[in-house]
């Protein structure tokens, strides 16, 4: 393990048990978050990116969800092995999370400032008055105008973008080292998204935080990430620095995703390259490579699961045919 690794996820497997049995929705995920860097975790609905985040945070819905295998190592300590009380302390102080939908993450009957102050009192040793002052400072830091006045407002009185800023302030309340942001801009408009991305970028630089940024949007990934992990059907299929991933994707899924995006530079009303079929259900995953049934590079060899292998320094790919993609260049 390199010395500058802040958070390491190793062989993480997460299962959900319901009336109709157990499904493994995250299966052997390895991730490395470098100190002070942003790791983008990208994939489509159901790929397991959010469940990976909840597993890291110890926030899986109980009793349905559980970590079946693997380690989550923060500064040398395995969080999975920690008792719930110890994890509760870590959450908030060392590592915290921002969710997609601020309306459900905030309590609608409490003033936003109170919710922020409560987090401060819960995790740090401050009194009521001091907590209020600190909360107002935090609201100002996340770019909320007139923070003194906003402190006393209720969530429904704020716009979607403002609510997301409040959630970020709550996540930052105890100066965590690691921030996990799960689709924090998916529910807001594009001009507000630009504001939020800029805010996260600025806060990260000022506070030296490490960030895991989860999104389905490759454009957002290109804006904010240093490193990227692409997930498909519960597995990481490709991992690389952001520049390499976008200029030289070596997994067919990554490449197909990039090609199927409508782009402003593309001529209007031309057919887009597509990925045939749809994501298989976690209950009926194909044997071997899980992308094989939708992949234009697939061969019988793909019936055997390809390992996530380092094919160049820092570039990891889980595909038997990555060399063919490398020779091919970007389509």
């Amino acid at each position, binding site marked *: 393990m390199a010395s500058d690794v802040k958070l390491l996820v190793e062989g993480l497997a997460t299962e959900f048990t319901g009336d109709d049995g157990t499904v493994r929705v995250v299966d052997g995920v390895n991730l490395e978050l470098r100190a002070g860097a942003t790791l983008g975790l990208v994939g489509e609905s159901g790929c397991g990116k959010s469940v990976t985040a909840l597993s890291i945070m110890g926030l899986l819905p109980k009793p349905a969800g559980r970590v079946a295998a693997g380690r989550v190592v923060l500064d040398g300590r395995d969080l999975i092995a920690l008792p719930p009380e110890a994890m509760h302390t870590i959450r908030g102080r060392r590592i915290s999370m921002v969710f997609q939908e601020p309306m459900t993450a905030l309590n609608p009957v409490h003033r936003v400032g109170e919710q922020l102050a409560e987090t401060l009192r819960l995790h740090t040793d401050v009194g009521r008055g001091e907590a209020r002052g600190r909360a107002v400072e935090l609201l100002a830091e996340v770019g909320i105008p007139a923070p003194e006045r906003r402190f006393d407002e209720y969530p429904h009185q704020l716009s979607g973008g403002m609510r997301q800023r409040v959630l970020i302030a709550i996540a930052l309340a105890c100066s965590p080292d690691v921030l996990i942001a799960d689709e924090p801009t998916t529910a807001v408009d594009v001009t507000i998204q630009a504001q939020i991305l800029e805010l996260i970028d600025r806060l990260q630089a000022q506070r030296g935080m490490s960030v895991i940024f989860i999104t389905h949007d490759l454009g957002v990934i*290109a804006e904010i990430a240093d490193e990227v992990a692409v997930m498909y059907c519960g597995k990481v299929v490709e991992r690389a620095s952001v520049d390499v991933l976008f200029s030289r994707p070596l997994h067919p899924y990554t490449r197909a995703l990039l090609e199927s995006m409508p782009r402003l530079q593309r*001529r*209007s009303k031309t057919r*887009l390259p597509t990925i045939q079929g*749809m994501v298989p259900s976690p209950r009926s995953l194909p044997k071997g490579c899980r992308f094989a049934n939708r992949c234009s590079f697939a061969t019988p060899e793909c019936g055997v699961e390809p390992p996530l292998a380092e094919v160049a320094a820092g570039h990891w790919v889980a595909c038997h045919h990555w060399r063919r993609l490398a020779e091919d260049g970007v389509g």
Partner: protein
Amino acid sequence: MSAPLLEVRGLTKHFPVRAGVLMRQIGTVHAVDDVWLTLSRGETLGLVGESGCGKSTVGKTLLRLHEPTSGAIFFEGRDITSLGRAEMRALRRDVQIVFQDPLESLNTRHSVGRILEEPFAIHALGTAAERRRWVAELLERVGLPSDAAQRYPHEFSGGQRQRIGIARAIALRPKLLVCDEAVSALDVSIQSQVLNLLLDLQQEMNLALIFIAHDLSVVKHMSDRVAVMYLGQIVEYASAESIYASPRHPYTRALLSAIPMPDPTDRERRRASRIVLSGDVPSPIDPPSGCRFHPRCAFARADCATRAPSLESVAVSMQGGVAAAQNGAVACHYWREI
């Protein structure tokens, strides 16, 4: 040039805001204010803008799912705003809409076969056997398996449900299809499949589309011309290529520069030149005076707060009547200078 399929003149839709036990009107939402549009057969007009800009209200008003407050909507030369119920029903053969969430617009207790047969039943078309054949043809056309007819909407994925919604909308071979955020909830790999389907159907049926979405990349991809809306008004109108290559309105520029591009090599330059709008979109209940964009506009001058700009043609200023500028218009006093 032949008469347009659709012509919208001065379309305005205000919603009353009511409160209190007596539900007295305390204000007005200016959802759509004085919108003018034209659309030819087989053409796509994109409507783009952020939440609350009125783009969906325009789409719904075109089918009179909302009654316009004022203005006229001409379809094939006839003003449809005064049509009675029977005439409107007949018109719905020609004008259809697809929404973001098909589950909300499809009757989920009916099988897909029955859902797709309904348009034929409403208009008393065909025998039972003919309808079954048409349903089978529709399923095949939108890329669904033939056994889908016996199944129910909830058994399908989001992308497949959207195909069901599209199949129902095209059943009677309409001339105009309004797509209201039709692909916004879909994952990118599924979204591209549905966009291709819409492009293919448009070509086969010479279908005109009003394509409404908040994602400018998607709108630009689907459209011949694009109208950018802000707080109930069109601020810029241009061909799909020129809206991207030479945006004129400060809001269009901000919108374009806010789009995250899947190209990290360029991000430092983009960040440096990005126009980050301050604050939120103001309330449409009490829209700003003058130019509605002025409180957030980096180029605003004193008179922008008092003088409302009207959509002004940009064609006259272009040398030799450049084709890309046809129908181009912008609602900004200072677009030439910025």
